[in-house]
């Protein structure tokens, strides 16, 4: 029971997804969704190694939305940069190691995911808070990752 109280927002989110899949927001669908999502979270907390990650996830909703907004703008800006590089045949891939100021697993996961989503940069490997990035932009290594993205993540996802 304590797991479900700890993850009340996550339970509501799963219920919302259940209602979308059912195609209605009736009381019947909401109750079934609540039961199924509670069972899912209960089982998720009891698989070996699952509890420590689920317990530490604490997402602040509005900061996370801000992160998504910055990410979408970043994706389109780098798409147009890549178009320029494609038509001038100027792609020179190189591997660049960078060190992030983030220090918990969830935010590093979201950052690595965001880096791979942006056209022109791919996360290749990770050790602690050091990421190995495959990139093509002819810039200094501190400009590869958008700093406002990291700031939004450090506020949005807490350990």
């Amino acid at each position, binding site marked *: 029971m304590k797991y479900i109280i700890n993850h009340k927002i996550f339970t509501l989110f799963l219920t919302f997804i259940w209602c979308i899949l059912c195609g209605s927001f009736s009381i019947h669908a909401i109750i079934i969704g609540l039961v199924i999502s509670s069972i899912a979270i209960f089982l998720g907390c009891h698989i070996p190694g699952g509890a420590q990650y689920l317990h530490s996830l604490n997402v602040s909703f509005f900061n996370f939305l801000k992160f998504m907004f910055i990410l*979408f703008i970043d994706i389109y800006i780098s798409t147009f940069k*890549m178009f320029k590089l*494609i038509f001038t045949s100027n792609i020179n*891939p190189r591997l660049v190691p960078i060190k992030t100021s983030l220090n918990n697993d969830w935010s590093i996961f979201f950052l*690595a995911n965001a880096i791979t989503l942006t056209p022109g940069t791919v996360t290749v490997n990770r050790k602690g808070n050091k990421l190995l990035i495959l990139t093509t932009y002819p810039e200094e290594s501190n400009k590869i990752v958008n700093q406002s993205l990291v700031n939004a993540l450090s506020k949005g996802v807490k350990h």
Partner: protein
Amino acid sequence: MFEIIGYIIISIGLIFMLIGLIGLLKFKNFYSRVLVSSIIDTASFITIIIGVIFIKGISFFSLKIILILLLMLFLNPLATHTIARNANISGLRIGDDN
């Protein structure tokens, strides 16, 4: 009105996909292809989904489409990362396959 805007946005997404494919066929190097391919599976995919949402309006259909978009935002980087990481670990150096 919204339908026309939706079709225009989907066409922009298809143009993104076309330019991505041109890049994919133009470069012969593996790492360059990995970098270019993310134009197709993120930028053009997101644009096409936004176009479909414009056509259908606010309904359960568009909510389901947004769910698919969220899933793909997590699954696409996973595939790209796995391919690039395995190439790096197996010892393929940049410029080896020119």
